[in-house]
């Protein structure tokens, strides 16, 4: 776990109206207090709103494709023609450079159809960008969820039960942690992507989105499980847990009532940062062609599609890249806000 000492971000500006509300909020529990603090952090709230906009936009992808763009982003449209300024223009335009052989996809039209132009197969980049965003966000979100379930279980079990269980889990986490993330993900992907994965009664198809989800979810487990384990260890030796043990309260109840609520803030602080990391990993794997498989789109695969068009039609790879930067930046800002609200002393940041 790379430890980074972080200074707190901008001090939120408080206006008189909000100060007046504060005493009311303070009488409630720690969650509402954190929420009140978060709400006053304008950067974080702005980032949150931006994220909601991005999620909604990508969820509306089918509507955009069918109602506004009238294009099918999953079928190649090499012979398609569209109407621009009353003229019918082919989507794949004859090349004007060199020998005049071959075709170049149409550039950004800034109209309803082919807003950002077409890719090498004559598909609408704008529509694919939205569909890709859906997949990228789905993968990152589901992988984050998976990662947290595994990490919470492993970290809590290792920290709470100790002994041989802790020893085994900690050593395995050490190894996973030292394994460079991309190399581990590449190994898993290349083995799984060519053939379906069969574990007992479950079969995951080769092109399924579940594969990148599982892979990305697994590789980051130690990054969350290790700090969780550390925190559980400190909690276990804290006075209120010792008191609970002394009172003869059953272990599972201590685990659920005393340990879990205290660990949950750590986990929540990690969520946006992990999600940002997962988006980066997904795009990298897809760019290496071991992430999302065609014809499905993700931001990473669209960057890959646009690589051969980089100098002629840069919009194809610039647009998804910008989408990644904006989303990840918003997640990082949101993460800072959540950390300041929930756990200001936390010095952990995942990489």
């Amino acid at each position, binding site marked *: 776990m*790379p*430890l*980074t*000492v*972080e*200074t707190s*971000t901008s001090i939120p500006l408080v206006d008189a109206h909000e100060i007046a509300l504060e005493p009311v909020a303070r009488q409630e529990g720690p969650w509402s207090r954190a929420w009140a603090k978060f709400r006053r952090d304008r950067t974080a709230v702005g980032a949150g709103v931006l994220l909601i906009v991005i999620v909604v936009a990508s969820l509306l992808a089918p509507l955009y494709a069918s109602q506004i763009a009238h294009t099918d982003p999953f079928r190649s449209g090499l012979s398609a023609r569209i109407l621009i300024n009353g003229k019918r223009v082919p989507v794949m335009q004859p090349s004007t450079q060199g020998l005049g052989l071959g075709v170049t996809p149409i550039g950004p039209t800034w109209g309803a159809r082919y807003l950002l132009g077409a890719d090498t197969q004559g598909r609408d980049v704008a529509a694919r960008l939205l569909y890709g965003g859906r997949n990228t966000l789905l993968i990152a979100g589901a992988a984050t969820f998976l990662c947290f379930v595994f990490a919470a279980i492993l970290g809590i079990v290792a920290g709470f039960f100790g002994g041989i269980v802790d020893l085994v889990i900690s*050593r*395995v986490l*050490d*190894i*996973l942690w*030292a*394994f*460079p*993330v*991309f*190399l*581990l993900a*590449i*190994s*898993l992907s*290349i*083995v*799984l992507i*060519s*053939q*379906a*994965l*069969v*574990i007992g009664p479950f079969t995951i198809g080769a092109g399924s989105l579940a594969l990148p989800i599982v892979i990305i979810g697994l590789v980051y487990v130690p990054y969350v499980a290790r700090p969780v384990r550390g925190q559980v260890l400190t909690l276990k030796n804290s006075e209120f847990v010792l008191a609970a043990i002394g009172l003869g309260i059953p272990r599972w109840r201590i685990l659920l009532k005393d340990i879990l609520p205290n660990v949950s803030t750590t986990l929540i602080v990690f969520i946006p940062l992990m999600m*940002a990391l997962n988006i*980066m990993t997904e*795009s*990298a794997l897809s*760019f*290496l*062609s*071991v992430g999302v498989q065609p014809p499905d789109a993700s931001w990473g695969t669209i*960057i890959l599609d646009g*690589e051969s068009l*980089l*100098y002629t039609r*840069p919009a194809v*790879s*610039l647009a998804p*890249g910008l989408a*990644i*930067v904006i989303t*990840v*930046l918003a997640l*990082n*800002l949101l993460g800072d806000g959540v950390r300041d609200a929930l756990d200001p002393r936390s010095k952990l940041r995942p*990489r």
Partner: protein
Amino acid sequence: MALTILQRLFQMLFVMFGISVLAFLIFFATPGADPAARIAGRNASPETVAAVRANFGLDRPLPIQYGLMMKRLFVTRDLTSFVNRGQRVIPQVLDAAPITLCLVVGAAFFWLVGGVVLGLLAAALRDSFIDKASMAIALVGVSIPAFWLGEVLNLVSQSRFHDTWLFAWVPALGYKPFWSDPWMWFKTLLIPWISLATLYIGLYGRVLRANLVEAYQEDFIRTARAKGLSPGRVLIKHALRTSLIPFITLFGLDFGALVGGQALLTEVVFGLNGIGRLTYQSLQTLDLPVILATVIYASFFVVMANALVDVVYVLIDPRVRGS
């Protein structure tokens, strides 16, 4: 101190063993498909698959298979590709390694120098424009996928603005060996270095700033100032020296993460024939022996680099050294 170092080296060996076992299990024991068919590549003939099976001893027990794999990777080094028939894999990896190393070491130099300069400026001019700018650079820097930044830099320097005075010096993509033309080598690598270093310059600047701010609350800084030393001397000679120590641990981790991460993709974007591009090409052809070799060699390198940094840390930090 010797004991601490020895302990760290032992831990390194354990982790290396663990990684090799894990990689072995992934490649040879994942449920669902025949490992021989996977290694033979796409559309391999039954004869090739049978040859792979005999070659890797795949009908023997797993521990023996593991031993065979490690022997072929590190002792006899005769692992061969089945996609490019008969191509020896290990020499390929070893040929590619220096290029990756040049890329990463250069990038590390840039981000350390950049980070230290930015951190010093931000701490010295606290709450100034530079302080706030470093914060912004840090956040944006860690939010940009390095390979995409590389593409953008390519677009600007190779195509759109290549004919202006700003980027006319940029050579075509590809790697030029250092020994044949050092100046050319530098020019081809400069932009890849920048695109990788951007990831961390802001972050390191921020970390150093935070460390410096913390150091300024220590007693020895107050003593130094009370002695009447100039502010610059206090900053460079007294505060910076202690603040750099946590830097080293962080640097070790990030350096490793870079070798096994963004550097791979940056090579692909800039057409540098390093480990990353080799992996990328093998991924396209499903050439598993090459991927197995690059994964194990690169991971071992990363683990050893991390251990080395920890040893250096023990050597230079008197607090750790004493205990």
